[in-house]
């Protein structure tokens, strides 16, 4: 399959990398010649230096017989024009990254249908929504919904005072038989383990569990967290993500304070968000943070444009006593570091964009693909086809490759917590976990 990617920023680069690893023919168009050269050297893709909104450049990239056209530069206008040109030239499917909320507004003149774009993605809004979800849970470093929200994956740090510390999974399973959850991954000192019954929890582990959505809230206490209610959130930085987040918070009656260092931007924000308190100041100014009561906030979110500022202000807030601290990181190579230094969770608009696009690509039997942050594992939601090799076999008897497991089975809307005796049937949906190199094999067995 031939795929054209316009823009070799963080989103474009990561997409090109993933797609070329999957064996697709990828052409990248990038206006900065140096960056184009770099991506051509590093990845097995064809890189073309040129403006992605220019028709000759798109022709050169072979847009007319592309199965998929992805416009993911950070400029809305370029992405729109590139997609319009591509669909006129004959590209089968187009995807545009668009940050301006006006394109998503109901009744917009420039709606998705009118523009003829297959998929519009708004990384900033997705990051803000993810942050809002994470703020709602006292412990989660990651929250992913599967099967229309019936099942949730939660990632959390195991605290030293947690009741589960030192126990292995088989013991826990017996003790907590009334709770339905499956531990799907444990990350310790940078090593990711897909656990077996003998695996133990230790303090400081980064654990990933899957559970029916109605029972997810019972998990954090097991890891040593006290329940809390989200009442006050402080946001450092007045970025576009901050505006979306402030709107979600206001809609749910959560008090929100935003700090930005640009006076004119503060003015804009204060007029745009009547319910939020907007402060003009530096997000790393400890005195300001303390004066505005950072020690009492339930959530602290660092959403400035600079990763270093975000990390620093998050650490300051955590040191002052903010309960849950979330940092936005543009460079997602830093993400594994985050939970290790004491920041509760990280979000990345670009990673959300990549995930959304990958999910769109894996249609067919694969409903959802998620690259988990901070650990080296993936989650995939698969519908069991009529020819799957595992059909009807109890899980115990399946020859699982090491580093893969079934996290949950959804049959006719019912969530089944898989045990050794359970067997998958046709049309079941299963959620698989695996180390990235195991996943293709696992997908073949089930799909």
């Amino acid at each position, binding site marked *: 399959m031939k795929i054209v990617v316009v823009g070799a920023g963080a989103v474009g680069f990561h997409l090109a990398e993933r797609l070329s690893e999957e064996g697709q023919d990828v052409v990248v168009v990038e206006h900065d010649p140096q960056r184009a050269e770099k991506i051509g050297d590093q990845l097995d893709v064809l890189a073309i230096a040129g403006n992605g909104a220019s028709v000759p450049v798109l022709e050169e990239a072979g847009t007319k017989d592309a199965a998929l056209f992805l416009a993911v530069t950070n400029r809305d206008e370029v992405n729109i024009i590139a997609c319009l040109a591509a669909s006129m030239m004959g590209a089968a499917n187009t995807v545009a990254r668009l940050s301006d909320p006006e394109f998503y507004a109901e009744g917009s003149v420039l709606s998705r249908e009118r523009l003829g774009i297959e998929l519009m993605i708004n990384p900033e809004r997705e990051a803000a929504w993810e942050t809002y979800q994470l703020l709602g849970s006292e412990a989660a470093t990651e929250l992913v919904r599967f099967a229309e929200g019936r099942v949730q994956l939660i990632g959390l740090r195991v605290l030293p005072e947690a009741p589960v510390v030192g126990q292995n999974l088989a013991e826990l399973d017996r003790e907590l038989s009334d709770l339905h959850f499956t531990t799907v991954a444990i990350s310790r000192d940078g090593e990711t383990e897909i656990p077996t019954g003998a695996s133990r929890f230790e303090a400081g582990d980064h654990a990933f569990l899957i559970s029916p959505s109605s029972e997810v809230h019972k998990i954090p206490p097991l890891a040593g967290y006290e329940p809390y209610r989200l009442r006050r959130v402080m946001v450092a930085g007045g970025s576009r993500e901050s505006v979306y987040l402030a709107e979600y918070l206001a809609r749910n009656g959560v008090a929100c304070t935003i700090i930005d260092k640009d006076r004119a931007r503060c003015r804009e924000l*204060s007029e745009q968000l*009547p319910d939020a308190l907007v402060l003009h100041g530096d997000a790393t100014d400890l005195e300001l943070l303390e004066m505005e009561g950072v020690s009492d906030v339930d959530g602290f979110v660092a959403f400035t444009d600079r990763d270093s500022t975000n990390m620093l202000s998050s650490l300051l807030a955590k040191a002052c006593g903010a309960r849950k601290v979330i940092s936005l990181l543009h460079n997602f190579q830093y993400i594994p570091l985050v939970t290790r230094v004491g920041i509760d969770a990280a979000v990345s608009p670009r990673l959300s964009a990549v995930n959304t696009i990958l999910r769109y690509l894996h249609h067919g039997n694969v409903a959802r693909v998620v690259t988990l942050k901070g650990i080296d594992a993936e989650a995939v939601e698969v519908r069991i086809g009529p020819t799957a090799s595992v059909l009807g076999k109890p899980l115990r008897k399946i020859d699982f490759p090491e580093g893969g497991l079934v996290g949950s089975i959804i049959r006719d809307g019912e969530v089944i917590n898989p045990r050794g005796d359970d067997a998958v049937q046709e049309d079941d949906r299963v959620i698989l976990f695996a180390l990235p190199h195991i996943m293709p094999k696992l997908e073949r067995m089930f799909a």
Partner: protein
Amino acid sequence: MRFRHLIHVVGIILIALAAGLLLTTAVAWLYGGPDVWAFAGSTVGTAVVGLVAFKTTGLERDLTVREGYAVVSMAWVAVGVAGAVPYLLAGVISSPVAAFFESVSGFTTTGATVFSEIETLPRGVLLWRALTQWFGGMGIIVLGIAILPFLGVGGMQLFRAEVPGPKPERLAPRIRQTATLLWYVYGGLTAVQAILYLVGGLSLFEAVTHAFTTLSTGGFSPRNASIAAYDSPFVHYVTILFMYLAGVNFTLHFQALNRRPGYWKDSEWKFFTFVVLMATLIMVALNLARSDYAGLGFEPALRDSLFQVVSISTTTGFVSADYEKWTVGAQFLLLMLMFMGGMAGSTAGGMKAMRIYVLFRQGLAELKRSLHPQAVLPTWLGKKVVRDATLLRIMAFALFFIGLFVGGAFVMTLLGHDLVTAVGASAASIGNIGPGLGDVGAVDNFGWMGPVSHLVLIFLMLAGRLEIFTVLVLFHPDLWRRYGRKSRARGDAARQVRQAEFKDKRIRLTPPGRET
């Protein structure tokens, strides 16, 4: 600043005024009054002065901002003088200052009168009093722009200088269209009210004159006892309704007439209506506690309370009951309402509900800022943010308004009036209400005052009607200073002389023998 321009525009306004005088002459002639010749003479005099001023001068270009301010103030004084002439010629007032007071009180829609006996006055004079208020309500300049387009006066400067409120809204792209539409709404409401009065049993003459002075929130009445002369609840409620409508922004009426009613979306309207209703509620409670309403029941207490609250808060000044017999608390409540006045863009006076509301919101924001020193807190007017420049202007306006009120009251006490009278007269004049407190209360008049007191109050009435800045700017030296090449050369020369003197002085200041 070109005085030729000022005189030209004032000439136009005087010609327009002569048309009004002509109408009054015709009415006086119809009623066969003794004042026909007075009005005929005034008409001719005003028309001649206006024509001479208009013909001998001309506009070489559009008015500048400074000329706009000067023109508006000058036109109002000129109109005040021209409007006083019929009173003198008809012999109903002997003192020229008192006649000027009556005339300015009319045009500024204040409604303070020097007459103690009104009903014996000739019909022409009575109509003229009402007509001055009706012209002044929507603004004589706006009238000039609207009805005399061929004379070529226009421009936002004039409009801005006369229309009440922090920022006049435009109903149409062009100012002339806006002015015309406003006059249509104004005239239409006046006609409807006059018809309702006729239904209520008033004579045609009284229906029309009362409608003129209600829609303009003026408050002159051809009856001694004002609206209290009519013992009809229907007439009282009609008056209440139209006083209230006159106190509401005419832009809202215009939108409602175009089937796009926006009252509920307007936060100033909500604030104004809320204040009026709350004040009425308190007033009813205060009045029901008193003995003279105890026997009458609830309805008269409600009607009188509502009437007085609406009359004072819209700065109309009609009375249906002698509120000076009410409790001191009730009187003080009315005094407070005098300061708010009606909405911006209405014909009412006072500080305007919008300014009070914005100041209130700004006060709350400052309170919050004490707790969050680095917060960025916009001041909200409904769903809109008030610009900083507007906010500062509103604050300056409030300062000047209060300052002029206090200063005016102080001068009145220096002139020998007692405290309540001085405060009441000053507030009633700058707020363009009319009746005040004490010796100028609901059933009293201003005829007994001396000419100096009258002149002080005339200044306050004009300042209040023209929203302070238009008048006060006349006292700013920059309005009169020339900024030409000549004066700059003169300034440079003066500076050189000063510098030379300074150098000279410095040299002399150095102790002897130590010069280098």
